[in-house]
């Protein structure tokens, strides 16, 4: 029986188990998918600012007379920055913001799981950010006449999906850790922006790091994800790739499972700590 047809004195319908989990996921994803689009300032800052940076890097390549394929690399990297920004500011730092705003105690007290809340945030953020990344990609490709030559749409879709799963899994882990950092969370989120752009090779192929460094950088899902995507969408991509696409797909799949499992563990630890100590949700910490 739906709530609208129920008698006013009837007890509200209680959802449990998977139904509660899924409803929580949808409830937390909703503000990300719908609500964020209503805030022009966010759309502007998450689309326009990375786009400006991308244009800057494209002109640097023009200034040093780089081959056209690098222009495509920069445009794709610029589009992918939207995801890293979303993961850092709207996933990793989110529980910290929620603590500041007083929502975190409500999350902890509610009969649903933190995992469902984080998953909702991730799904909503992923969808909303995909739109912004697409705008940057389309606009950049159009402005700079980037030549795409997709070799396999299936592999491209698989790489993107696995990269996003692993990336948002990492976001959930960082979200739990940042909650423990307290006041440092904002500074650390801010600090991790450019270093990750560099280490993950957002604007150049990571192959140029040399094998050992590039392997180390591959702990971040975007590093391998972007390398594989560049190999799949640009004619000269494979020649500038780090590992083969199938191998990168395999590693990304392992990362996706591992990061989500670790995130689940981290969130349960946070939840237990919050209930036992009663201080984790304290705004003053």
């Amino acid at each position, binding site marked *: 029986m739906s709530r609208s047809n129920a008698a006013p004195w009837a007890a509200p319908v209680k959802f449990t188990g998977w139904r509660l989990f899924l409803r929580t996921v949808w409830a937390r994803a909703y503000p990300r998918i719908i609500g964020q689009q209503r805030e022009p300032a966010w759309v*502007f*800052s998450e689309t326009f600012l990375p786009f*400006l940076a991308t244009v800057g890097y494209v002109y640097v390549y023009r200034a040093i007379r780089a081959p056209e394929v690098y222009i495509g690399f920069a445009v794709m990297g610029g589009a992918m920055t939207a995801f890293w920004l979303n993961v850092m500011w709207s996933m990793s730092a989110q529980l910290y913001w929620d603590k500041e705003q007083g929502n975190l105690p409500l999350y902890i007290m509610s009969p649903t799981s933190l995992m469902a809340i984080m998953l909702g945030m991730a799904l909503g953020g992923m969808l909303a950010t995909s739109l912004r990344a697409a705008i940057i990609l389309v606009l950049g490709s159009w402005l700079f006449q980037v030549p795409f030559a997709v070799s396999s749409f299936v592999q491209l879709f698989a790489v993107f999906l696995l990269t996003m799963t692993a990336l948002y899994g990492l976001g959930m882990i960082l979200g739990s850790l940042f909650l423990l950092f307290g*006041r440092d969370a904002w500074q650390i989120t*801010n*600090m991790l922006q450019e270093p990750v*752009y560099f280490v993950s090779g*957002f604007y*150049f192929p990571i192959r140029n790091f040399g094998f050992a460094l590039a392997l180390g950088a591959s702990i971040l899902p975007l590093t391998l994800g972007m390398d594989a995507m560049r190999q799949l969408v640009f004619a000269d991509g494979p020649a500038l790739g780090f590992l083969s696409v199938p191998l990168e797909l395999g590693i990304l799949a392992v990362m996706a499972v591992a990061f989500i499992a670790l995130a689940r563990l981290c969130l349960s630890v946070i939840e237990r700590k919050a209930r036992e100590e009663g201080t984790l949700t304290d705004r003053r910490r």
Partner: protein
Amino acid sequence: MLRQHAQTFRTAAWLGWQIESNWTDPLLFFVFSVLKPISSVLILVFMYNVVAQTGPGDPIFAFIYLGNAFYIYVGAVMADTSYAILDDRERYRTLKYLYVAPISVPVYLVGRAVARFVIGTLAVAITLAAGVLFFGLPISLARVDWPLFTASMLLGVASLASLGLVLGAWTLTIRNEPWFLGEAVAAAMYLFSGAIFPLDILPRWLQPIGFALPMSYWLELVRRSVLGDAAAAFPTFAALSDGQLLLILAAMTLVLAVIAAVAFRFFDRVARDRGLIDVVSNF
């Protein structure tokens, strides 16, 4: 009056330093202060190394490296002056108390920016040192034209602080999500001021934006004073002498200072009229 301003400035500078630095231990603070700019410059170094076969001796390398290093000041002074006003209004919720205190708010804001300026200077120095030590940046302290460098830095930082005041006052009047404004302007200037590529690379119809920005002249003067003849490899400002560039920058700084004073009074009145001094937008 002057004594009161000096006291406000000193206290604000000290407060700014405490806010910027006391959230962690000195080591992490140092890492935080230099990691971001170093990474930013490393992106450009790798982009250059991946493509260029000419090595760091090519004038374009020094052009890109220096422009990016000194652009740190734009974020530190301009964007953070505007950010300080929001920080006080929304995060610490102290702006209303500052308004009722017998101090000058613009002086307080410029004082708050001092801490960022100091941190920015540290980051610029480390970035330049890394450039000389690891990437073959052709800088020699003995060959730097110090008077030109000092004059251009004074004017450049003054124009950045003026722009920061304009943005800060403007953000006071924005109801929803005012945080992005300083960052957006800094990002736009990064593109149009010739920080990381010569302005001639921009499409012809976009170049006038670059010529209207004081940062373009400031960065050119800094390059000339630090690199000497190597800075003359690009035609953008080749027709202008150092003196002419300084004069243009001084005139622009003066105009900006006047605009900042007028804009602050205007936006301040709007914010008071609309009751925005103690509003919390969405923190």
